[in-house]
């Protein structure tokens, strides 16, 4: 339920954001569109570095190198031969490279893959190191990449750089890529494999003892992170439309590092918040470099002022929140919903009588059905309610289960007043019943009857059933309920007829089906109205065993109306006797059998 709600909210907000991006060209000027683009690209870069550093605990300073690889691969793949000929003015481009040309999407995927390949290559030797050594090694690697690019002019045009890269990075492209990266990353981190990565970060030795090849996990995380670096670099190149090796110096890595540290190491949400904050703040703070007039005071613009203020803000963040804005926490929709206080499990803590009936009266006009009925039932007891026809037994059931409102008096279930509640409320409270005159859903299959009983314990909402393949809770819960229903049916000997129409069952089987259906509501208290009616002696024998088993296995308390004295006397721990709406006796079966009033009113002299 909670998961489905959150999923729905996520989908709705994603759709709203997509709508916003769609309208962005009209709503926002090019400047803000560019910043939005930068936010997305920075977020991709931050997420990928966070995967390496925050999630798996590998301190890597090589991200700028992987960005460079991605940016160059993508640019080289999409520039036209004519552009390449015009740009390689120092040395000729390699002939094979001149005519390579792919669409943008393919180029950024290849860019990511090439970066990932280099990442994998470097990971194999370097990840044997740890901590600071790894940082230095990756830092060196990034420098090597940059120097290689500078010194292979036939391949990369050297330090002249490339320009005229078509501006393919639109808002949808950058945010689309971010959405995919985000989705994949969240899914992976929520899986048990994500847990393994964090375990490697927190205690590598212990993770090894769990039978996990931690080196492989680290190589994998590093390679995936490098893919993100390459992708981000490619998008960046296509946004700026010109790249050169000096763009990818160590400061570029520091920028990304700054984002994830401010946002929170190891938090996906933090990386997103960090990207938004760092990107917009840097641009927004530009005004401090312009002359400012506050009232009559004129402050001349000082270039570089915004970096001073920005750095001060960073210091403030780190002083007051050393672990970053989010720490390792993640955003959850739950924060918008007050936590429903989990109800204390009453059966665990509640020790009083399960059911207390006190001075209960039920009158229909002048007719008194029940008069001043009082009794308590303790947990785990099986109580018989007996009396001649018209004694008010079924009326008592109907009052307890909410079909009638008591005229006066109290009914307490687990200490809570339930007198006057609607039947469905009573059922939710944990009381289930069967009917004297069987009430099955005749046209439905046997198993469906039982499954309906389980509906109130299911958590999904109706609208999720419209899209069960998105809200997989529906499928999962239904299959659980089906399995449990089959279990009930087999316990009651009905598994063979599970898919028959309920009305086609013989009378005895229908009775048992009613019990199964009642059990499916997971009650704490079960009211059985003449369960043995219409059963032959052998069946009643089995029913008795079954009722005892029900109590023991399901931890139930059972109130039973029955005319079959054999059943009543054998099964019940305690018996209440009604006559003409009046409570005439209570006691153990032996006491009841010996009670002259009962014998006179109901059992008849022969029975005793």
């Amino acid at each position, binding site marked *: 339920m909670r998961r489905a709600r959150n999923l729905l909210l996520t989908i709705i907000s994603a759709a709203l954001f997509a709508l916003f991006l769609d309208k962005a060209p009209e709503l926002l*000027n*090019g*400047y*803000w569109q*560019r*910043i939005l683009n*930068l936010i997305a690209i920075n977020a991709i870069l931050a997420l990928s570095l966070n995967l390496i550093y925050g999630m798996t605990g590998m301190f890597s300073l090589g991200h700028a190198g992987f960005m460079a690889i991605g940016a160059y691969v993508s640019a080289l793949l999409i520039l036209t031969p004519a552009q390449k000929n*015009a*740009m390689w*003015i*120092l040395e000729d481009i390699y002939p094979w490279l001149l005519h390579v040309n792919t669409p943008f999407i393919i180029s950024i995927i290849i860019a990511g893959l090439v970066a990932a390949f280099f990442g994998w290559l470097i990971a194999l030797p370097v990840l044997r190191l740890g901590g600071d050594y790894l940082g230095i090694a990756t830092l060196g690697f990034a420098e090597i990449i940059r*120097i290689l690019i*500078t*010194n292979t*002019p036939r391949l990369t045009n*050297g*330090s*002249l*750089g490339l*320009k*005229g890269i078509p*501006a393919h990075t639109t808002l949808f492209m950058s945010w689309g890529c971010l959405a995919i990266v985000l989705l994949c990353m969240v899914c992976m981190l929520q899986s048990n494999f994500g847990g393994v990565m964090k375990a490697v970060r927190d205690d590598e030795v212990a993770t090894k003892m769990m039978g996990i090849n931690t080196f492989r996990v680290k190589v994998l995380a590093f390679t995936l992170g490098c893919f993100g670096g390459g992708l981000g670099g490619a998008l*960046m190149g296509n*946004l*700026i*439309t*010109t*790249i*050169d*090796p*000096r*763009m990818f110096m160590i400061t570029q890595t520091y920028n990304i590092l700054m984002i994830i540290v401010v946002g929170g190491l190891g938090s996906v949400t933090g990386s997103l918040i960090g990207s938004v904050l760092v990107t917009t703040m840097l*641009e*927004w*703070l*530009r*005004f*401090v*470099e*312009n002359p*400012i007039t*506050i009232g009559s005071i004129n402050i001349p*613009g000082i*270039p*570089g002022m*915004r*970096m001073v203020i920005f750095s001060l803000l960073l210091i*403030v963040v780190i002083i*007051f929140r050393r672990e970053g804005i989010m720490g390792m926490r993640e955003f959850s929709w739950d924060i918008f919903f007050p936590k429903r206080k989990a109800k204390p499990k009453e059966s665990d803590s509640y020790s009083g009588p399960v059911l207390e009936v006190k001075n209960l009266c039920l009158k229909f006009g002048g007719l008194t059905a029940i008069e001043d009925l009082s009794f308590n039932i303790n947990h785990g007891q099986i109580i018989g309610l007996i009396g001649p026809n018209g004694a008010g037994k079924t009326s008592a059931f109907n009052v307890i289960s909410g079909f009638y409102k008591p005229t006066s008096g109290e009914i307490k279930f687990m200490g809570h007043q339930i007198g006057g509640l609607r039947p469905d409320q009573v059922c939710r409270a944990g009381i289930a019943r069967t009917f004297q005159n069987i009430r099955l859903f005749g046209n439905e299959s046997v198993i469906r009857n039982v499954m309906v009983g389980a509906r109130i314990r299911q958590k999904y909402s109706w609208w999720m059933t419209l899209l069960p393949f998105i809200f997989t809770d529906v499928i999962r819960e239904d299959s659980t309920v089906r399995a449990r229903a089959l279990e009930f049916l087999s316990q009651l000997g009905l598994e063979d007829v599970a898919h028959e129409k309920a009305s086609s069952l013989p009378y005895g089987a229908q009775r048992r089906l009613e019990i199964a259906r009642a059990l499916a509501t997971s009650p704490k208290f079960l009211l059985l109205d003449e369960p043995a009616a219409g059963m032959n002696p052998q069946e009643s024998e089995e029913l008795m065993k079954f009722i005892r088993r029900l109590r023991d296995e399901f931890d139930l308390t059972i109130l039973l109306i029955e005319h079959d004295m054999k059943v009543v006397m054998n099964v019940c721990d305690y018996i209440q006797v009604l006559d003409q709406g009046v409570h005439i006796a209570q006691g153990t079966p032996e006491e009841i059998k010996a009670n002259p009033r009962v014998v006179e009113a109901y059992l008849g002299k022969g029975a005793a």
Partner: protein
Amino acid sequence: MRKLLAALMLVLMLCSVAAADDDVIKIGVFNCLTGQNAFGGQLELEGTQLAHSLFPTILGKKVELVIVDNKSDKVEAANAVTRLIENDKVNAIIGTYGSSLAMAGGEVAEKAGIPVVGTSCTNPLVTLDKKFYFRACFIDPFQGAGAATYAFRNLGLKKAATLVDMSNDYSVGLGKFFRDSYKKMGGEIVASLLYQTGDTDFTAQLTSLIEADPDIVFLPAYFAEGAIVLKQAKELGAKFKFIGADAMDNPEIVTLGGDAVEGFMHTTFAYDPSMPEMNDTAKAFTEAWNKVHPDKAPNVNCALGYDCYIMLKDAIERAGSTDPAKIRDALETIKDLPTVTGMTTINATHDAEKDMGIVEIRDGKKTFIGIVKPEV
């Protein structure tokens, strides 16, 4: 704490709201005011601001300079230009030092159709296929050929070598065009050696150069590395001459380089405060500069920053309009416009064609020794 921060932000945000005015011409300036190229960017900005203070109105309208920093960073450069165009709605833009920054910003301006006049972005790719990008400077091939022409024709030196910063597009480009042009004229290139930005030890390259024994070494370096090269060359007793390019044009070269820079030559734009015969524009510029900055001499970056403003002023006046498209058309037809760095003509590739100057450090002073017509 959080409330305090929020309040602070609110105050800052309110301050940032600027009043809009229709009757002004807005000229955006994006340049490197911080970061590794800040030195050049600052000088250019000061030049532009000087021109603005001398000519605060064009077509009778007030001109407002909107200045943004690009932090010597490509991403920031693109952001800065977008901001100028979209938020500040500028009519034209001036900038920047650093060709890669100009390329990043140029793409944005091209799409928006706002004309840009580049100050000292000399990479040929900056204006390649661009309708809206112009520049006040000449380009790398022109300057490389200029140094070669001066060395071969004027000095009569037949053996040359190059020492190039491999990681710098400017340096690599100049080195290549120097060699091409020198060889074409009949000279011999005896060595071409490389280094990287940030290197501090050049003894290996210098030893190889001493062995190769050229008459002259072309050093298209930035000042930081160039000064060390010159110093170490003197220490090693190198006999050959050095010729550099405009990136070595720094007012403090003598103070920083001492006697190691004595005899060092570099190509530059045809302006130097030490020029014997200045045109009127240059005279006006020098006078005004000395008044505003009495403690430092102007250099070519200041002059180019100034010239960009003059070029825009000329274009807007001839166009008789502040419409960006019309300014662009007028920029394209600039011909023999008197600017600080000589007569400026915009050619078909939007580069400025102008004379090239040669400066030599003589007796601890930058001395303008002549003008050269490069054989490209």
